[in-house]
C-alpha cells in the first residue's frame, strides 16, 4: 500500500524537498561529533563535543517543521541544557575531590569580575524588560528576566536588599500556579481557551522573569561567600 503525502499543498515543494537533506545533515553532524569524541582524551573536551551531537538532534527535530515538532524542540533543548549542566557539575565535583578538598552537593565557583559590569547603563535593562513584557509568554519572560539579571549584576557593588528578592521568589511561585491553572483549563474546559491562553502566557511570563532574575540572587549569595 502506498503512503499518502501528509504535507498540505500550500507548502512550497522547495521546503518539502529540504526535509531529507536536513535529516541527513543532522545525522552527519552527530556522526562528526561522535568521531571527534572517540579521538578525544580530555574529559572536558569530550563534554563540549557531546553538545555538538545535541545540536544534530535539534537539526533533525527542526527539519520536521510542524507545530508538533516544536513541542519536541523545546524539551529537547531543555534536556540538552540540563544534562550538560549536570555533567559539568559532576566533572567539577570530581576534579575538586581529586585535589583532596571536600565539596558541597552543588559546587559553584563563580567569579565574575569585569569592568563592563560597573559602567554599563541601566537603560539596557529597562529596554529588555519592556520588550519582554511586549512579547509575553516564555520568550518574553526569558528576555525580561535577562534584563533584571543584567540590572542585578551591574548593581552588585552597591548591594541589593535581600527581602525584595525573596518577595519576588514568592510572586514567581504564584505566577507558576496561574500558568498551571491555565493549562488545566485548556484540558478540562476548552471553551474558555482565551482565559486559559492569557493565564498561561502571563503566568509563564512573570514566572520566567523572576526565575531568571533569581539566578542573580543566587549568584550574589555566592559572591558574598568569597
Amino acid at each position, binding site marked *: 500500500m502506498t503512503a499518502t503525502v501528509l504535507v498540505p499543498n500550500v507548502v512550497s515543494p522547495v521546503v518539502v524537498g529540504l526535509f531529507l537533506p536536513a535529516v541527513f545533515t543532522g545525522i552527519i553532524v552527530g556522526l562528526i561529533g561522535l568521531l571527534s569524541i572517540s579521538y578525544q582524551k580530555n574529559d572536558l573536551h569530550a*563534554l563540549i563535543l557531546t553538545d555538538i551531537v545535541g545540536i544534530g538532534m535539534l537539526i533533525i*527535530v527542526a527539519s520536521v517543521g510542524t507545530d508538533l515538532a516544536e513541542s*519536541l524542540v523545546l524539551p529537547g533543548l531543555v534536556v540538552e541544557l540540563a*544534562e550538560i549542566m549536570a555533567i559539568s557539575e559532576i566533572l567539577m*565535583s570530581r576534579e575538586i*575531590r581529586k585535589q583532596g578538598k571536600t565539596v558541597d552537593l552543588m559546587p559553584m565557583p563563580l567569579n565574575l569580575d569585569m569592568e563592563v559590569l560597573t559602567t554599563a547603563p541601566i537603560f539596557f535593562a529597562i529596554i529588555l524588560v519592556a520588550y519582554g513584557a511586549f512579547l509575553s509568554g516564555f520568550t518574553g519572560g526569558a528576555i525580561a528576566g535577562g534584563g533584571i539579571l543584567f540590572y542585578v549584576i551591574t548593581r552588585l557593588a552597591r548591594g541589593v536588599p535581600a527581602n525584595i528578592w525573596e518577595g519576588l521568589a514568592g510572586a514567581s511561585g504564584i505566577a507558576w500556579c496561574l500558568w498551571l491553572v491555565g493549562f488545566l483549563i485548556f484540558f478540562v474546559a*476548552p471553551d474558555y481557551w482565551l482565559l486559559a491562553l492569557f493565564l498561561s502566557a502571563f503566568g509563564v511570563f512573570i514566572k520566567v522573569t523572576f526565575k531568571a532574575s533569581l539566578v542573580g540572587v543566587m549568584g550574589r549569595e555566592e559572591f558574598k561567600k568569597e
Partner: protein
Amino acid sequence: MDISILGGPILGIIPLGDIVLYFTPFNLFMFAAALAFTALIAISSTESQVEAEFGTLKNREVKVDKAEFKLRRFLAIVCGLATAGAMVTGDLFDFTLFVTLIGIVNIGIVAAVKEIDVLDAAFQYGLIAMIGTLPLFGGAALILASTGTISLLQIVQIPYTTSLMLFGSILFFLGVAGETGVAPFFATKAEMFRTPGSPFLLIIHLSSLLIIVRTIEILLIINKPF
C-alpha cells in the same frame, strides 16, 4: 494488529485534549509494579547498613550523610514516578519526555555518591545519555514526520508502514537504549548497589527493564510487523 491485541482489551481511556492515556491490563500491571516499588522506596529508611566484618564475629554499622541520602531517595522516587507515567501514556511525545526525565534522574542518582570512581562512571553515563538524545528525539521526530501524529491511538489506525517509520523506530530504540538501557551497566560498574544506604537504587534496573518492554510494545504498534 492493534493495541487491544498487544496488551489485552482496552479497559478505558483518559482524553486530556490532545493527550490520550489508555489502559490495558499489560500497561496497568507495569504501572502498578512501578508505583508499588516507588511506595516501598518512599516509606523505607535505609540510611544505616550493618555489615559483617571479615575475620571476626563483630558487626560494623555504616551510616551515610543524611543530606546525601535524602537527595538520592528523592531522585529514586522521581525515577519511579516517571517510570509509572511512561507505562500508561498513549503518546509518543510524553513517552520521550518521561524517558529523558528518567535519564537525567539516573545521572543524579549515580552522581550523588561522592567517590571518584563513582563520579567517573556518572560522567561516562552522562555522556552516553547526552549522545542518546540524538537518536531519541530524532527518532520521535522522524516517526512524527512519517505518520503525521504522535498519538499511538492514531498511529495504530494507519494501515501501511513506510521505510522512514522503520528508520525512525530504529533510531528511537537506540535512543531509549542510550538514555536508560545502559544505566544499570554504569551503576553496576561503580558497584553502587553495595554502597551504604542505597538498596533502593534497584529502581534503576526496574525502570530500565519496564521502559525497554514498553518501548518494544510501542515499536510494534508503530511498525505492525504481523
